[in-house]
């Protein structure tokens, strides 16, 4: 027998016991193998997940950045609103970015450094002075040099989330305020830098400390364990899960350094809930609770964030203020004890309020606008890129205009619903506001409830446009300046003809009357159906279709006479694009919601440039716009001046569709165009004309946002001529009731009206005289 085996045999007990022990040993080895394999498995899970973890960062959407320059129209109140939106706070002595001080009409502000498409904007301390709601002085705070332009960081208005609704503001360890780290380690894991993942000593210490304190003062889990918990495991509190957690924590420490783990923790720890959006990481928590970046937080804010770690819903500073405050103070005490803050700071911090904002700004506060942004992004980016790479989307939204538009729609819809005794909550509205020269979307309102993320009427409500189509008919005619001018007589008489579908088409005027022979401008200003139909038939429906397409309408148009009175449906956005070509003097520019896209760390990725094309004769456009001014002064839109300032030059068209189902108004000033709509979603008649409904919203918006009051300069080959409406001959400004109309040079009437008296005779003779010498 083998010597060794022999010795073994002699040492072993009885065969029965021997078998039993073998079994046990075997089982033990087997169990050990399983455990080892499982541990190895957990280890690899930890490694691959942490290594491969690049957090999905949603794309962040920003409003247009506020830019200040001398001469800019801005009220101090509006300025403060912008500052507050951006999370700027008032300080007696502004020293860091994001702070400001007000002394009467002078503000001392320090902007935040930001990367834009066209370069990095440094943080600038400056002073701005207002007078009469205009910026009168702008200079550098330290050098006193005059500044031409100051640009703020843009307000975040939303994000584009992946399906699982996660969000982060990633921070590097070096970006995090040292006090935060000190507080965090002091409260959550004192021996973080010493242990290997778990700290049995601190578990015991915490146990006794909590016993002594009569409450939970310290946590027993290390930061590593908490990271693992947040990262991988569910929220059960079983022994099995705890065991897993310990193994994985050890594994994590085996593979990664302390700093990496800490940084991971700072970005991963769950710190709050915002509806369906989970708030992970201190960077985002800082924005969510205080509306400010992490580096602008004061000691009491930092302490509060660390306090929240233990239980974000239990210590929710918005819902459980007392509890949150108590725990915050505990954190401050600890910091004082450890000497990380001094007595004076501690005292001040204890006395300070929580400092939490009422609601979190920037979580899709403007869903209708963000819809449009997504549409425009989809053309260039996959959904995946949008929801995981943390792209920064700089848009054209103007928060002040958007708010004014939201308010106007909500207020007027409610008001009219009540006045007309309609069932509450059914009447709806929509609005789109753009700046004309840049074709930039300033505001998009999808419904009476601005926060509602459902049906976006501005983008998706396809509604009969009715009289809104008329300017296209008149524009078509006026392009033929030899045949049609502003005073060309039209027959406002009944007509009927067979439509393309074989049915009889017999339109009527709104007042069911015939007005006989009317000059062209009057027919448009008063929106007469009959004269428009006659005119449209004369120039031909296909020509009108061409005009509409030139104006930017891409939807297929029914080539029937009923099109002349608007028997076609468009969305408010499409109407805005169409009227924009008019407002822009015959230049078609695709409306833009986005200016640029940058990567998450500020590198320029894509610029969305302004594109423009001349598609209509600018003289004909000018003439139509001129008549549309008359429409607002004396025509169907005349009650608009009850809402807006009489000195504001406005060109606009009311729109009422068949059976009064849709109430529209499309109007523009020198610099701003807005289209508004009111109606019922189920397409039942709302029984509102354009002037009764949509126009009121329009007036409110423009009155609120302010607009340039200058009027339009006629093109070189257009002249403005006074006309006597009684006989459509030349008049002058002294004639009672005279109107100033636009004509292509040489097409205006040459006959003088008797109302001009001797002045007319002199002029007439003068012209005859002049003619002799030419």
């Amino acid at each position, binding site marked *: 027998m083998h010597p060794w085996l022999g010795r073994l045999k002699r040492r072993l007990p009885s065969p029965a016991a021997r078998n039993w022990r073998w079994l046990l040993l075997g089982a033990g080895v087997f169990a050990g193998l399983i455990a080892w394999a499982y541990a190895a498995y957990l280890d690899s899970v930890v490694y691959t997940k942490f290594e491969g973890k690049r957090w999905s960062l949603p794309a962040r959407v920003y409003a247009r950045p506020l830019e200040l320059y001398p*001469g800019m129209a801005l009220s101090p109140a509006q300025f403060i609103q912008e500052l507050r939106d951006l999370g700027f706070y008032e300080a007696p002595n502004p020293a860091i970015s994001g702070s400001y001080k007000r002394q009467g009409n002078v503000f001392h502000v320090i902007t935040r450094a930001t990367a834009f498409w066209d370069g990095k904007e440094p943080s600038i301390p400056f002073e701005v002075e207002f007078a009469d709601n205009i910026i009168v002085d702008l200079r550098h705070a330290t050098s006193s040099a005059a500044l031409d*332009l100051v640009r703020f960081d843009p307000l975040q208005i939303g994000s584009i989330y992946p399906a699982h609704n996660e969000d982060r503001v990633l921070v590097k360890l070096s970006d995090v305020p040292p006090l935060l780290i000190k507080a965090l380690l002091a409260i959550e894991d004192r021996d973080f830098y010493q242990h290997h993942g778990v700290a049995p000593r601190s578990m015991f210490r915490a146990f006794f400390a909590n016993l002594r304190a009569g409450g939970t003062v310290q946590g027993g889990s290390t930061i590593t364990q908490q990271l693992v918990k947040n990262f991988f495991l569910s929220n059960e509190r079983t022994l099995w899960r705890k065991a897993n957690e310990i193994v994985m924590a050890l594994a994590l420490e085996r593979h990664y350094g302390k700093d990496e783990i800490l940084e991971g923790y700072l970005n991963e720890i769950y710190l709050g809930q915002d509806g369906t959006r989970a708030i992970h990481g201190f960077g985002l928590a800082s924005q969510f609770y205080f509306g400010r970046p992490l580096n602008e937080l004061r000691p009491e804010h930092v302490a509060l964030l660390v306090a929240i770690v233990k239980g974000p819903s239990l210590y929710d500073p918005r819902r459980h203020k007392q509890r949150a405050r108590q725990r915050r103070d505990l954190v401050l005490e600890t910091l004082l004890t450890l000497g990380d803050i001094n007595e004076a700071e501690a005292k001040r911090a204890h006395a300070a309020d929580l400092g939490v904002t009422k609601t979190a700004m920037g979580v899709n506060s403007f869903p209708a606008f963000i819809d449009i942004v997504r549409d425009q992004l989809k053309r260039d980016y996959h959904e995946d890129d949008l929801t995981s790479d943390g792209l920064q989307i700089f848009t054209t939204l103007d928060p002040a205009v958007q708010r004014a538009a939201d308010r106007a729609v909500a207020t007027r819809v409610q008001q009219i619903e009540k006045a007309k005794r309609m069932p509450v909550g059914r009447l709806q509205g929509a609005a789109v506001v753009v*700046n004309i020269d840049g074709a930039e979307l300033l505001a998009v309102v999808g419904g009476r409830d601005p926060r509602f993320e459902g049906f976006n009427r501005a983008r998706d409500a396809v509604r009969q446009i009715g009289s809104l189509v008329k300017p296209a008919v008149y524009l078509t005619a006026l392009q033929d300046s030899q045949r049609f001018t502003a005073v060309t007589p039209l027959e406002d008489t009944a007509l009927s003809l067979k439509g393309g579908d074989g049915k009889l088409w017999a339109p009527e005027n709104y007042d069911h009357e015939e007005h006989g022979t009317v000059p062209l401008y009057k027919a448009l200003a008063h929106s007469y159906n009959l004269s428009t139909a006659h005119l449209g038939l004369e120039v031909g429906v296909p020509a009108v279709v061409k005009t509409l397409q030139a104006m930017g309408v891409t939807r297929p148009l029914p080539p029937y006479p009923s099109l002349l009175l608007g028997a076609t449906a468009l969305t408010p956005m499409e109407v805005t694009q169409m009227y924009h070509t008019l407002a822009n003097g015959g230049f078609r520019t695709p409306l833009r919601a986005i200016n640029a896209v940058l990567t998450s760390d500020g590198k*320029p990725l894509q610029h969305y*440039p302004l594109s*423009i094309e001349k598609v209509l004769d600018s003289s004909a456009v000018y003439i139509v716009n001129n008549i549309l001014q008359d429409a607002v002064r004396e025509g169907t839109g005349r009650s608009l001046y009850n809402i807006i300032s009489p000195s504001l030059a406005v060109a606009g068209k009311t729109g009422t569709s068949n059976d009064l189902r849709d109430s529209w108004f499309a109007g523009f000033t020198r610099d701003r165009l807005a289209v508004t709509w009111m109606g019922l979603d189920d397409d039942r008649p709302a029984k509102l004309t354009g002037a009764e409904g949509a126009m009121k919203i329009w007036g409110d918006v423009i009155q609120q946002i302010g607009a340039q009051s200058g009027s339009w*300069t006629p093109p070189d080959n257009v002249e403005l001529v006074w006309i006597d409406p009684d006989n459509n001959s030349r008049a002058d400004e002294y004639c009672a009731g005279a109107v100033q109309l636009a004509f292509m040079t040489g097409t205006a009437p040459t006959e003088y009206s008797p109302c001009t008296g001797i002045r007319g*005779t002199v002029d007439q003779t003068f012209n005859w005289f002049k003619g002799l010498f030419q």
Partner: protein
Amino acid sequence: MMRNFLAIAGIMTCTMQGCATSGPATNTAPIVDFSQRSTSYPESPEPRAAASLPAPTPAETALPDRHAAPAIESSMPTPHDAPAARTHAPIATHPAALALLNEAMRQEKSGELEIAAAKLERALRIEPRNPLLWHQLAALRLRQGQTQLAANLAQKSNSYVAANTDLAARNQRIIDRARER
């Protein structure tokens, strides 16, 4: 009768005082007040800096196209232009827009064309009807080879400027360039 007498008397008085008539082909170059055409804030208290037309960009003077088209960039007026009818009045520009314009031109020189374009669009937000800004954007797009867009932008610039000006002529050159291709 009385009316006609008064009319003739009026005419004679007028003629004796040498009333000026408006019309083309005069000898005095009309002073075009650009501030009327590019007002963004009628009651601005700030002084407006006058921006002289920058020297023609290389894109306007060079001939990068493949066709053997004759050079159009001659600064001599073409025969049908009245010699004195062109005005060279500087275009009043808001200081903020001017600052951006200068930055844009600098960046264009160093080849950062799209960044320059973004700066010009910013300037246009401040002063939307400044024909010089539109022209610069047109010239830039021309340099990038986007001739049709350049021509369109030049037309937009022309809508804010009188026909008999230097700037209008330069815009026309860009428009003509696009037509060639």
